[in-house]
């Protein structure tokens, strides 16, 4: 609801909404309620629904290093983050706050809202779901369920890619996103 209010307040015409992971979940929650200010949805490895028998990775029990490594298929991205200088005190506070927020939303049930899936049919704007085929946090098998529930959704499976397709396969994902948005506009 906050997102819808924000869109109402900030824009006079519909926008193309893009969300990644928890952000994709928030975008979907907004879109099932009201698409007055939403022209299209681009969801990158969105949380929010679950497929029974295929649990998400337990990111809350991973060590900081595991959490970084499990985010990427190409470990060079992980190495770069692991070799970055340690965060300062202010950044630690921000990270801790972010983790508490993630737990509030995602701990139980793990990374989904039991009421979301049954309303996904209400999303009447064009939707594009992008998923890294090797996502260790939210399994790429979830993409098919998004495709079934959101009418006409375009599914882009990105090979050799983990949970952050916009980072790990930046050029390809940009191309696909721009292509989708161009088609929506015409």
């Amino acid at each position, binding site marked *: 609801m906050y997102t819808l209010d924000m869109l109402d307040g900030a824009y006079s015409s519909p926008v193309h909404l893009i969300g990644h992971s928890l952000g994709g979940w928030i975008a979907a929650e907004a879109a099932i309620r009201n698409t007055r200010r939403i022209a299209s949805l681009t969801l990158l490895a969105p949380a929010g629904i679950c497929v029974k028998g295929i649990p998400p990775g337990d990111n809350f*029990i991973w060590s900081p290093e595991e959490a970084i490594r499990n985010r990427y298929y190409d470990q060079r991205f992980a190495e770069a983050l692991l070799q970055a200088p340690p965060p300062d005190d202010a950044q630690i506070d921000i990270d801790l706050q972010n983790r*508490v927020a993630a737990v509030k939303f995602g701990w139980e049930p793990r990374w989904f809202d039991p009421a979301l899936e049954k309303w996904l049919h209400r999303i009447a704007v064009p939707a594009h779901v992008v998923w890294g085929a090797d996502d260790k946090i939210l399994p790429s098998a979830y993409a098919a369920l998004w495709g079934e529930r959101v009418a006409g959704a375009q599914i882009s499976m990105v090979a050799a890619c983990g949970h952050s397709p916009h980072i790990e396969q930046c050029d390809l994902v940009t191309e696909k996103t721009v292509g989708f948005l161009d088609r929506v506009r015409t």
Partner: protein
Amino acid sequence: MKFTCFHLMPYRPLDLKAASDYRSAWVVLPNSFYDPKQGAAEYESYLDQLSYAEKLGFDVIGVNEHHQTAYGMMPAPNLIASALIQRTKSIKIAILGRALPIVGNPINIAEEFAMLDVLSKGRIIAGFVRGIGAEYHSTGVNPAFSHERFHEAHDLIVKAWTATGPFEFEGNHFRYRYVNLWPRPYQTPHPPIWIPSMGSRETIEWASAPERKYPFLVTFSSEAAVVRYLNMYRETAQAHGYDASGSQLGWAVPLYVADTDARAREEAKAGIETLFNNFLPMPWEMLLPPGYTSNASLKVTMKIRTSLGSRARNQTIDELIANGTAVVGSPKTVLEKIERVRDQTGVENLITMLQFGVMPDALAVRNMELFASKVMPKLW
């Protein structure tokens, strides 16, 4: 001083070497490591030890709750308390404690404590805790609401024990149209409530508030930390406008007595080192999931609690003795160490853990006997 004979009931037959391949003895250690036949023998030994505490003159027997771990075999401590009621006559039985936030319906806890209190004719002490971080992984309960659920469950349980039912309870996490406890507790107004804690300012602030004055038991801490936390309680009580009594302060400590310091160290070594290096360790992600403590507390804890949160470094008995996390020695040495903490804090509840880690029955029982005969009388 008052003395509690406290037990964790560790699973001693654990294959320590094979178990060390897992990141912790909590949450992820497969239960194929548990053999029910050996587990049955463990329960028998431990119940014998705890009921023997009554004959030795202890004031209280203490049991506790932990889930899905080889560290302690009492996921339902009230069942053990019930068995102990049948094996003892007059000793108090403390459940230290029930983890309130991780239970779906707190009325069940109120009911069970009331049953135990009536069954024992008023011998129950109720401990309330939030459960260790790992238990939020094992139960799925959201740690971000741990504090809220604890306080709400506490309010509900105390009201269920004291108010005439049926009444309606409207919380954010728990809502009931009818709360009407049958049976009611034996003790008036209700069983004493103790608060065991690893120590946090929030807990001390809450426990010491004048409307509660709950005894605060500090656990698994160095002597310096024990002194600091117990005095923090005293200072907080003063800020609330009263002087805390020594009976509001408790110190829970692994303790071992033998005729000489050298022998005590030798006999306690395997038990204490397996407790701290095999049964207790867990990574920070298990110990302190986000939201379980305030972020300020979290940062402080990560600095102080070197004994927790990591498998990186094994601790030796000498280190644990030196920093006072364990009290080990001859009766004279042990007495001096206890007196030193008592003199600095006025603590009047000593919660002794006299069996720990892989310590075998014979040593545990002799430890209990020596402590009860050579140390306890000097502190009465």
